[in-house]
């Protein structure tokens, strides 16, 4: 009995070994650079999980299909830029230096993306970014694809909503003293001036990591604004609305990061908060609904905008590989020829000369049950 058992194990072992070469087939690699440590790691984690999920789904179907009909496993190579330009440069050089990586995604932070653009450009590798700063696609780089609407798109949507739909005129602007906050502020103030002929009644900034917003809230209330537009990251936004509410502020609070992370932090203070987003899980179209259901099944919570951006990016790369094969040049050349590509987020235009593929955005408002209701959609 015992010997027989042993033999059967042995046979099983050999069979497994024999099948290994097939499984161990050289995978197709795509890179991901995200902020995985330091402030901003929260988004980085969401990005990684969404990209990995998309890759896993591809592999569950046997891997990435090649033009000749064969399939190869897909592998995600993840590097961390810590939201620092010099670390990002090392990280992206590492991705680009690995010749088996056919395309990569990231960085998310504009301050990291911008100084590292030339690395990808020199290597001629397709780069999918979620950074919002305008200038990233203004430098004439041919390898960059932005898979997210820019701040110009959603600041425009938000300004429209606030001025036209809500009829607000006395606007206070607060912003975080970082790339994200400052560029958001610049764009919003410009749009406010150019499109609506308005100037902010008061402008205040704060540092990322500030804990006590009484002074900011106090000055906003003192200046009697009827809407506060806050441009920055979630923790500070949540603290600011809390202090505003504590001091009895009755106006509207608009926030460019009013996503689920913000909601988690702000809790009931988020009621009535308005915000522009590139995408939200309550977006009423069919693709978004389906994505939301699948994501819920897998992660047991709602997806955020970044989940869709990176999910879509992986799939766009996979589709391109299916058409032209896993080489950098071919994918780049092919993508530049694609007019429209349907993703969960909306319609992408990979062939756009600047690389700005998508302009879809929504404006949401948290209702009594803290569900983000879509109050305005832009395609």
């Amino acid at each position, binding site marked *: 009995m015992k010997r027989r058992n042993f033999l059967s194990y042995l046979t099983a072992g050999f069979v497994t070994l024999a099948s290994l070469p097939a499984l161990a087939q050289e995978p197709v690699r795509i890179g991901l650079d995200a902020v*995985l*440590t330091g402030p901003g790691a929260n988004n980085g984690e969401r990005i990684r999980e969404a990209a990995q999920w998309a890759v896993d789904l591809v592999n569950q179907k046997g891997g990435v299909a090649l033009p000749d009909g064969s399939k190869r496993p897909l592998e995600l190579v*993840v*590097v*961390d830029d810590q*939201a*620092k*330009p*010099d670390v990002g*440069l*090392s990280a992206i*050089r*590492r991705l*680009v*230096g690995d010749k088996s990586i056919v395309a990569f995604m990231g960085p998310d932070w504009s*301050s990291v993306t*911008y*100084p590292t653009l*030339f690395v990808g450009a020199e290597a001629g590798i397709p780069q999918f970014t979620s950074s919002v700063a305008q200038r990233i696609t203004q430098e004439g780089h041919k390898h960059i694809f932005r898979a997210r609407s820019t701040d110009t798109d959603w600041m425009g949507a938000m300004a429209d909503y606030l001025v036209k739909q809500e009829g607000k005129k006395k606007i206070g602007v607060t912003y975080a*003293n*970082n*790339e994200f906050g*400052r*560029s958001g502020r610049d764009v919003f103030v410009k749009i406010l001036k150019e499109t609506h002929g308005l100037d902010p009644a008061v402008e205040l900034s704060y*540092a990322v990591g500030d804990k006590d917003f009484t002074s900011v809230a106090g000055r906003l209330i003192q200046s009697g604004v009827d809407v506060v537009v806050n441009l920055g990251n979630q923790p500070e936004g949540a603290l600011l609305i809390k202090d505003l509410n504590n001091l009895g502020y009755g106006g509207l609070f608009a926030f460019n990061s009013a996503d689920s992370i913000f909601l988690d932090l702000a809790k009931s203070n988020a009621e009535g908060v308005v915000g522009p987003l590139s995408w939200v899980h309550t977006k009423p179209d069919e693709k978004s609904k389906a994505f939301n259901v699948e994501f819920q099944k897998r992660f047991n919570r709602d997806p955020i905008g970044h989940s869709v951006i990176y999910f879509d990016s992986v799939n766009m790369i996979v589709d391109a590989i299916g058409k032209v094969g896993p080489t950098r040049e071919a994918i780049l050349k092919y993508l530049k020829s694609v007019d429209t590509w349907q993703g969960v987020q909306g319609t992408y235009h990979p062939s756009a000369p600047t690389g700005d593929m998508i302009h879809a955005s929504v404006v949401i408002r948290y209702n009594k049950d803290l569900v983000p209701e879509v109050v305005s959609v832009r395609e």
Partner: protein
Amino acid sequence: MGRLNPLGLAVIIAAIVIPIFLSEYALHLMIMVVIFAILTLSLNLISGYGGLISLGHAGFFLIGSYTSALLSVYQGWPFWLSAPMAILLTATSGLLLGFPALRWSGHFLAVITIAFGSIAQLLSINWVFLTNGIDGVAPILRPYLPGIDLTSNLNYYYFVLICLAFIVYLMIRLVASGFGRALKAIKDDETAAACMGIDVRITKVSAFVISAALAGFAGALYAHYIRFLNPDSFSLDVSIRIFMMMIIGGTGSIAGSILGSFVVYVLPEVLRPLQDYYYLIWGVIVIVVMLFLPGGLISLGSVVRARLAERKDRADQKIVSTEAQP
């Protein structure tokens, strides 16, 4: 550093030859290692030889980087003028900080320098009309050297390597000079040094100024290498990183500073496959080195030798007998 031993010679040859075969990514790391080695040497001058803790060297690094970058981008100055200006300005800031701050030592100085570094970074963020704030400065040109294309990273590597060699030479001379001896005397015993006729204040401040100037030079080299500057690259953890490089390598040793820069810059890259855990492991390494090798990695050889000698001593039951002087 003593006389050059075969190991040192091998390292120098390796530093010259190996980069030819490195990938762009590895070359980038090597350039950063050299730039950080200059920074670490500059810190070593005041900490290793003078016993003063600074956790604000990123501040000097920032001032040097920005001065050279801004002059180059907005005024069109060549590197050969903007870099000396960067050195001059950091030296001045070292003087302005050093005079009041060097009345303190130890943890007080550590906090003052943290404050200095943070103020420098906050100013670079908020002083938008000068620094362009968070948007940063770009594109910064590589230095122009007739006949040599410094836009090639390999050439730039040799360029910074030569700068490092020059600074090492400078440090050796400086440490051996009367000034270096005065600095060491102050580290050992400030009062005794003063009794020997050393002007403690002037010596300390001079060391601080030289240190700041070197950090400023490293900043200029960095700015013209990386070609884009923004305030994010000059946070407290850069200061801490420089400090770690000095300590881990070996305080008060030139070779130690270079070794420390290499280990501290390259180790996280090597540990990167560990993803989430690499920083944690790095922290453990720091603690372990400090507990077992307080003289840094450079002391490894001498510590092992001393241990062996001690063991032998014990075996021989021989005790050095000198005049009793408790």
